[in-house]
C-alpha cells in the first residue's frame, strides 16, 4: 500500500528519462544515416535495406502484440498489411494520382498511410470479432483463411489492377518518414503493453479461464489487441508500397506472413526488443548473404551461386532456434523500452 502511494505522490515529469533516451537514440540514428546519405557517403543499397528492415520492425512488433503478448496464434498478418498497402496506394496512385514532390501531396500521403492503418484495423476488428472466440489451432486456421480471402478479393478487383497489382506508386517512403513511423509504432505498442490493456492481454496468454474468472473481459481485450496489431500491419504495408513503388497480391501471401512470423519467434515471443533485433537482423542477414556469397565465389575456387543463399539462411535459422529456443531475447526487453514505473513495481512487488 505504501509503495503505491509513493509512486503516485511523485511528480511525473513531462519527459521521462528513458523516453528521452529512446528519442535521442532514434534522432542520433536518423541523423547519422541521413547525413551519410546526404553527402553521398552511404551506399544507397544499404539505405534501401535499412528502410526495408525498419518496415519489418513495424510488422514484427505488431504481430508480436497478437502472437506474443496476447498468445493468439495469427498467421494472416500480411493480409492486414495488404489492406493497408492497397488502401493507401489506391488513394495516392489511382484516386489522387499524386506527383512525387511537394508539401500538399506529401501530407495527403501521410493521411493515406493512416487511412491504410485504419482500414486494416477495421478489417482486423471484423475478423477478430467472430474468430477470437476460437483458440489455438482453430484460430490459426481461420486467420490463415482470412489472410488468403483478403488476397483473393484484391485479386478479383479490377479497379486496383487485380493480379497485376498497382505499378508506378510515388516514392514517398523516405528514410525520415519510415524512422518516424517506426519510432511511433514501437512507443505506442510499448505503452499498450505496459498499460492495463497489456496486463489483461498477458493474463489471457497465461490462463484464459483464470483471467475471465477475475473479471477480465477476454474477448474484448483479444479483439482490441488484434485490431491494434492489424492497424500497425496496415501502416507497415502502406509504407512498403510507397518504398517498393509496386504492389501485387502475391506479395502479401502466406509465405510473407511466415517470414514475419519467423522474425517474431527468432526475436523472442513477448519481447518488443527481440522483434526489433530480429527484424533488422534477419533482413540484413538475408541481404548480407548476397555479398557473402559474392565474396565466396570470388575467393574460393568453387562456384557458389546465389541459389545457395536461401539454404544458408535456413540453416542459420534452424541453428538459432536450436541454441536459443526462446528466441534471441526470450521475453526480456532493452532497458529503454521498459517504462520507469515498472522498476518501482518490480522493486516493491506490485
Amino acid at each position, binding site marked *: 500500500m505504501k509503495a503505491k502511494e509513493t509512486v503516485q505522490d511523485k511528480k511525473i515529469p513531462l519527459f521521462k528519462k528513458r523516453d528521452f533516451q529512446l528519442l535521442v537514440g532514434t534522432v542520433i540514428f536518423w541523423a547519422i544515416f541521413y547525413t*551519410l546519405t546526404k553527402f*553521398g*557517403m*552511404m*551506399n*544507397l*543499397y*544499404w539505405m*534501401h*535495406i535499412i528502410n*526495408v528492415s525498419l518496415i519489418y520492425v513495424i510488422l514484427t512488433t505488431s504481430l508480436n502484440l497478437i502472437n506474443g503478448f496476447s498468445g493468439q496464434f495469427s498467421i494472416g498478418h500480411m493480409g492486414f498489411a495488404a489492406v493497408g498497402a492497397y488502401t493507401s496506394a489506391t488513394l495516392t496512385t489511382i484516386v489522387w494520382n499524386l506527383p512525387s514532390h511537394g508539401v500538399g501531396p506529401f501530407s495527403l500521403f501521410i493521411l493515406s498511410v493512416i487511412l491504410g492503418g485504419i482500414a486494416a484495423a477495421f478489417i482486423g476488428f471484423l475478423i477478430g470479432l467472430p474468430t477470437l472466440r476460437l483458440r489455438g489451432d482453430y484460430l490459426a486456421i481461420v486467420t490463415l483463411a482470412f489472410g488468403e480471402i483478403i488476397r483473393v478479393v484484391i*485479386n*478479383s478487383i479490377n479497379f486496383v489492377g*487485380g*493480379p*497485376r*497489382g498497382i*505499378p*508506378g506508386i510515388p*516514392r514517398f517512403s523516405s528514410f525520415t518518414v519510415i524512422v518516424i513511423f517506426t519510432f511511433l509504432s514501437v512507443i505506442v505498442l510499448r505503452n499498450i503493453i505496459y498499460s492495463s490493456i497489456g496486463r489483461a492481454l498477458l493474463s489471457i496468454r497465461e490462463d484464459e479461464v483464470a483471467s475471465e474468472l477475475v473479471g477480465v473481459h477476454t474477448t474484448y481485450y483479444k479483439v482490441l489487441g488484434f485490431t491494434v496489431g492489424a492497424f500497425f500491419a496496415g501502416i507497415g504495408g502502406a509504407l*512498403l508500397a510507397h*518504398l*517498393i*513503388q*509496386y*504492389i*501485387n497480391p*502475391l*506479395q502479401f501471401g502466406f509465405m*510473407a506472413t511466415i517470414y514475419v512470423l519467423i522474425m517474431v519467434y527468432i526475436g523472442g515471443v513477448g519481447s518488443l*526488443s*527481440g522483434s526489433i*533485433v530480429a527484424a533488422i*537482423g534477419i533482413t*540484413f*542477414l538475408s*541481404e*548480407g548473404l*548476397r*555479398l557473402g556469397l*559474392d565474396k565466396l565465389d570470388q575467393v574460393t575456387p568453387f562456384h557458389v*551461386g*546465389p*541459389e545457395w*543463399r*536461401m539454404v544458408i539462411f535456413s540453416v542459420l535459422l534452424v541453428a538459432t532456434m536450436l541454441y*536459443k529456443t526462446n528466441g*534471441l*531475447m*526470450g*521475453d*526480456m*526487453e*532493452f532497458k529503454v523500452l*521498459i517504462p520507469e514505473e*515498472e522498476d518501482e513495481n*518490480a522493486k516493491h512487488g506490485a
Partner: protein
Amino acid sequence: MKRRKTFAVLVSLLLVVALFGTVLTGCSSKTANNNGGSSQKTESEPILIGGVAPVTGPAATYGKSTKQGYEMALEEWNAKGGVLGRKVKLVFEDDKADPTEAANAFSKLINDNHVVAIVGSVTSSCSLAGAPIAQRAGVPMITPTSTNPKVTQVGDYIFRACFIDPFQGTVAAKFVFNNLKARKAGVIYDIGQDYNTGLAEFFKKEFESLGGKIVAYEGYPDGTTDFNTQLTKIIDAKPDVIYSPNYYNDDGLIAKQARTLGFTGPIVGGDGWDSPDLFKIGGDAVNNCYFTNHFSKDSKDPKVQAFVKKYTEKYGEAPDALAALGYDAMNIMLTAIQNAGSTDGAKIKDALKNIDYQGVTGHIKFDKDRNPVKSAVIIKIENGKQVYVTTINP
C-alpha cells in the same frame, strides 16, 4: 523480467557490428560514386552486367533457363574478345519471384556492384518493382520475359525482349483466320488472370476485325478443373476453332474435356502452353492443337539451329523459350553497349532505342514504347511433340 541479459545484448551487438561492418566496407570502397549511376572504370577492369532471375521460389524453373541464356550469351562475347575491348562479367542475383526481393536485388546491383546495365527480371511483378530503381539511377534495363505492357512504361531506360500480351492475341487471330481458314471461333479463358484475359480480349478484337465471328466467349474462375459447362456452350455454337489462352495445366484439361464432348477441330493457345507437362495432362487430346510462342527450337533459321546445338551441348537439355529470350536479351544489351562505344547509361539507352538485332527469337527493333517489334512462331502439337509451323511477322 530478468535483468540478466548480457547474452542477448552481446548477440545483438555482435550482429549489429558484423552487419554495419559490411556497410562501412561497402561505403569506403565506393565513395566515388554515390548517385548509383554507371561509372567509367579503367580499361583493364571487366564491364559488369547485372542479371536478375528467380532461381529459387515458385518460378525457379523459369529462372534457371533464363540464367543459362544470360551466361551463354556472355561467354560467346568474351570468347570473341569482349565488349569495347573489355571482358564482360555477369553479377547475378536471385529475386525468388518476390517484388520486395527484386527491389533489393536491383538496388544491390546498381548501388553496390555499380553494374553498367541490368538484364532482368523474369516475372512482370519483379520487373515492375526493379524498373523504378533502374530508371532513377539511369541504368538501362532490359527484361527478357515480362509481358505486362506497364513494365516499359516506367521510364525511357526500360526495354524488353519479348512481345507483349496484346500482340500474342492478335497474332493468334491472324493465324486462325488466314492459315486455318476458320471463320467461327469460341474462346475459353481464366477470368482471374490478366495474362489470359488480355490474350482473349485481343484475339476477339483482331478476329472480328478480320471478318470472323466469335460464337462463344466464356470465362471461368481461377482454380476450375471441370470446364464442361463452358465447353458445352461453346461446342453447341459450332465453332471452327477454340481459343484457350491459359496456362498448360488448364489447357490440358480443356483439350481433354473438349475432345470428350466431341470437338475435333483445332484448339489454339498462347505461350502458356509451352511445357512438357502439357502432354502428361492432355495426352492425345492435345493433338491437332496450335500455340503462339516466342521461339521454336525446330525453326530452320541457321542462327536458331546453332544456338540450340550449342545450348544442348552445354547444359544437356534443349533450350526453351525462356532460355532463348534470356540469351537474346543479354545479346541485345551487349550489342547496345558496343554500339554506344561507352558504358555511360544515357548513351547505352540511346543505342538500345536504335538497335536492329537479329536474334534467335526473331528480328528485334524497338517501337516508341521500347517494346520489340518482332515475329511470333506458331507451333503445332503432334503426338506429344512440338512441331514448328510458321513464323508470323507483325
